[in-house]
């Protein structure tokens, strides 16, 4: 197995750090501090609920913005700046380069998400609440957010292999939003009497990733049970979807002329 993607991934992570991408953590820390102070004053007994809801939503949203905006630039920036030329003249296959760039951004997102999770834990601690067993649900919710971000990154990378950064952003965002409502779209199709619409909604349902299944923020906040099977199912679903997207992206990128 070639190790060529490893230095590419580490360099992508280093680029994110040097471009001060992780500065978003300051924003998150301020948000958590503000929430902890405010919640203590305006809510009685629901401070945990509010902080977990707000914290996990912020982790998801910040991660999403990073995954889309950095994801669409992973390849296009290298092509535009021509930093790719001296790299691809080396013994590295194009799919290895793509895999490295992808892994680098997922690593960045994982580090970023980990720090934000620590911030969330600190906020919960600061409202004087001891850790309880059901807090493990927060970790599952964070894990699902990471899986979701990994799929979104793969989508952004895939689109950026054959279209401009602006269109890639639109396509990725569009697919994400559609994916969040995939089940509703299918349900709508089933209700209609129009057979064409039924087929279209069914195709959309199977084509776009179903992000609804990754959202367990409410369950984690309300300490509701999350089935273990869902962890396995979501992991497998995300892995398959990511693999398909990366294979498709590699196929497109491997035949592309670098002008």
């Amino acid at each position, binding site marked *: 197995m070639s190790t060529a993607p*490893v230095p590419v991934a580490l*360099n992508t992570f280093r680029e994110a750090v040097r471009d001060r991408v992780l500065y978003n953590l300051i924003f998150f820390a301020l948000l958590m501090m503000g929430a902890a102070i405010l919640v203590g004053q305006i809510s009685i007994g629901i401070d945990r609920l509010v902080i977990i809801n707000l914290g996990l939503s912020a982790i998801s949203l910040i991660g999403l913005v990073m995954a889309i905006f950095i994801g669409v630039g992973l390849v296009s920036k290298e092509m535009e700046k021509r930093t790719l030329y001296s790299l691809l003249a080396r013994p590295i296959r194009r799919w290895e380069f793509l895999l490295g760039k992808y892994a680098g951004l997922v690593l960045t997102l994982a580090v970023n998400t980990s720090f934000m999770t620590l911030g969330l834990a600190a906020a919960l601690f600061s409202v004087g609440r001891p850790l309880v067993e059901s807090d493990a649900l927060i970790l599952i919710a964070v894990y699902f957010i990471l899986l979701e971000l990994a799929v979104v990154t793969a989508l952004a990378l895939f689109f950026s292999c054959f279209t401009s950064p602006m269109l890639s952003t639109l396509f990725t965002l569009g697919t994400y939003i559609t994916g969040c409502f995939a089940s509703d779209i299918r349900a709508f199709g089933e209700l209609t009497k129009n057979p064409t619409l039924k087929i279209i909604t069914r195709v959309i349902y199977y084509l776009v990733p179903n992000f609804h299944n990754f959202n367990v923020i409410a369950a984690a906040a309300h300490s509701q049970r999350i089935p273990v099977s869902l962890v396995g199912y979501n992991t497998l679903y995300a892995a398959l979807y990511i693999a398909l997207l990366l294979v498709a992206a590699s196929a497109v990128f491997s035949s592309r002329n670098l002008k």
Partner: protein
Amino acid sequence: MSTPAIEILGLTKDYPIGFWPKRMRRSLDALTLEVEEGEIFGFLGPNGAGKTTTLKLLTGLIFPTSGTARVRGRFIDDIGMHREIGYLPEQPYFYDYLTARELLDYYARFSNYTSLERRERVNRLLERVGLAAAADIQLRKYSKGMLQRAGIAQAILHEPHVVFLDEPMSGLDPVGRYEVRDIILELKKQGRTVFFSTHILSDAEMLCDRVAVLAAGKLQGVGAPGEIVSLEVHAMDILFELRPGQDLPPGLARNITRLGARCRLEVPEAELYSALDQLRRSEARILSVTPVRPTLEEYFLRLVGSEQAVSHGVEVTLR
């Protein structure tokens, strides 16, 4: 017979232009060429001639419309070929958030060196290209010349057998150009093959074992600079001195250039003996008779047409 370092076999590249209707523009037309192991090979041509296209095809950055090429016996679509080559792109741009040391270390990781080997190799290269003092400064603070040096360092970092350099002298001051020439000659001494494109003809004339001239995507000629320029003698140059008070021979006077006490006369080869007879009769002292051969620049200009060469930014020496 040994395998050539580079074999280009009818490489052709068409680019689509326009949106609707889509048309094809031929950037490189059936280029066939061989470069021997250990040669310094110059690839000359005005801007837009197809030089960079050829280098991108050879390094696998773009794909040929037809034809193929081999580098040390390996086809260009073989990943193993990439272990044999080093490449300096035209106007190189690197990750500007890295320092030169980090950049070279990054590239060295693709050649499976140990960390100790990487460190030693990187330090040696930084020293060699004159960037040791600036090794830990981010590339975003580098001048164009410094970036070019970093580019050359990354191209030869892994000691490739064949080095492709796209306009390696571009953006360098005279000292930088001298140093790059020195590096190219050193690579030759180490037995490596250097294939470089340039539009600075004096560099090619000074360095290359052989050159190829490309214009509008077509190969115009290949040969050693010496062979090319000695193909024909188009005049003879006679250097002589006149005695004090002596007049110039009347039949030759209008063709003579005075250089202080000395005079220079350029005559067609066929008229050499008649001119010498006249000078002898005038009791002039003949100092030297040398054939005047076209320079590589003149050869180049004749092939691509002087107007085209100048309008496409070929750097020529005005005489």
